[in-house]
């Protein structure tokens, strides 16, 4: 990935969709090839369903402002869940507030699974969108997306999937799901920061209006009015993060080269092993015990603040994160101020988890 980006920055640095000089036409071509690559990765031939964005956050904001805000009426509602990242929570909170609509928040059960009965009860004829993450970035819970999509589609309600955490788990068959909107970020799949994807189902392509306006996304501009290009080009105003997109292309090649089942098994194994290992230490409290969990384990240590834990682990070269993980509503509902979060990718091994445990035990001893 880094090689792909550097090569671009050094030799091929040129604006796309603008001039017609050689460099630029090469850049345009690569850019559009990567759009096709992303489409194939997501299981469709239609590359015009794929828009490049800044990341998950921008993708979701676009759906809120450029799609849903034109449709939502006072009294309507949007359904999201208590376990969402702020990126898939605040846009709906702000949208429903400004449109005098209602934000309905699906709770979790005591294990950290989504409460599907509550979800069923909350969906009604006034529901305009269900917005849900595929994998919780704090609990690691893998949500039953197919069931949720089926439930919503029965009532003709579109579903947005925040796939930020699942996009690198190619085995989760995102490419076979019938979601309406899909959002994810490049940096969660080994691509650079500041690039992401919004994919829109064909039937909604005409309903996503421009977001930023400016160069590159117009058909014609006169003093009096502007006509815009179609999706996805109507979203891509201004100069794109080209090296980000090229890095994203390289990342998809890399992920595509892995054996889906191997990756999935490896990450599940690490996750289960981590939970089991941490559970052997009485001072360590693993947060939640969802029936499906993948890649992420949150925990706390009795009497030591999560940030202190993380700082000491970092001294031992163990990279964990402490904090609310941009899921304040979730933590508040669990009565927690913060957690420590371990997350696993294909690079990790069981050894890493053994070291994590050893460091934690040493810290607990040091602290007491």
């Amino acid at each position, binding site marked *: 990935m880094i090689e792909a980006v550097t090569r671009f920055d050094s030799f091929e640095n040129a604006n796309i*969709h603008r001039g*017609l*000089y*050689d460099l*630029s*036409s090469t850049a*345009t*071509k690569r850019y559009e090839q990567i759009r096709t690559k992303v489409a194939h990765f997501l299981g469709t031939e239609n590359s015009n369903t794929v828009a490049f964005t800044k990341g998950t956050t921008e993708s979701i904001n676009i759906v809120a402002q450029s799609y849903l805000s034109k449709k939502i009426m006072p009294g309507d509602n949007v359904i999201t869940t208590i376990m969402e990242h702020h990126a898939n929570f605040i846009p709906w909170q702000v949208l429903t507030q400004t449109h005098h609509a209602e934000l309905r928040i699906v709770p979790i059960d005591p294990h950290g699974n989504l409460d599907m009965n509550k979800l069923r009860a909350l969906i009604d004829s006034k529901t305009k969108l269900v917005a849900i993450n595929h994998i919780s970035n704090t609990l690691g819970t893998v949500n039953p997306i197919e069931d949720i999509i089926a439930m919503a589609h029965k009532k003709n309600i579109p579903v947005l999937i925040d796939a930020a955490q699942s996009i690198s788990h190619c085995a989760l068959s995102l490419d076979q799901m019938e979601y309406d909107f899909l959002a994810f970020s490049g940096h969660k799949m080994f691509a650079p920061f500041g690039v992401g994807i919004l994919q829109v189902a064909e039937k909604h392509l005409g309903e996503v209006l421009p977001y930023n306006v400016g160069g590159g996304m*117009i*058909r*014609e501009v006169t003093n009096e009015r502007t006509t815009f*290009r179609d999706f996805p080009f109507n979203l891509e105003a201004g100069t794109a993060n080209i090296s980000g997109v090229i890095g994203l292309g390289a990342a998809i090649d890399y992920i595509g080269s892995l054996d889906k089942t191997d990756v999935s098994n490896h990450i599940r194994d690490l996750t289960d092993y981590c939970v089991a290992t941490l559970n052997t230490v009485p001072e360590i409290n693993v947060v939640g015990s969802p029936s499906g969990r993948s890649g992420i384990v949150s925990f706390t240590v009795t009497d030591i603040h999560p940030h202190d834990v993380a700082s000491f682990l970092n001294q031992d070269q163990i990279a964990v994160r402490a904090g609310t993980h941009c899921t304040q509503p979730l933590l508040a509902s669990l009565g927690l101020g913060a957690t420590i979060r371990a997350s696993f990718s294909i690079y990790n091994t069981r050894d890493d988890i053994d070291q994590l445990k050893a460091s934690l035990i040493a810290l607990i001893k040091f602290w007491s």
Partner: protein
Amino acid sequence: MTKEELEILYKSKIIPASKEPYHFEKHAQANTVIEAYNPICGDKYQLYLDMSEGVVQSAYFHGFGCAISKASTSILARKVEGKRLEEVVALGDTFIASLTGITPMDFDDECLKILNELKNFDGRVDCIKSSWEAITHHLKEEQWK
């Protein structure tokens, strides 16, 4: 493509076809008028077709664009005359597909072949494609009516 090859293509076909394009005039009485607009550069042509009994009886065009797009549209006008609607759509689909480089085309036609050779030239594929896409798209919609 070397600069020399390019110059030969331009000299032999593109410049002549763009300097003296086929049926380059407004043809107000045509029963079908199609706009071919290239948003990348803002160039625009009107295609004037006279259709009867499912056949393109005559094709004219007018507007402003580069030498490539003018040559391409000129060739288009000449090629579609006398063809049935379905034949035009089929030709358009095949030609457009040949420009993506994925589906090759059997070119018995010299002019189409030259246009196709320019597909990799300096990002100008939209210049070649624009009018072809407009007519194919329009006639497909016509077929569904």
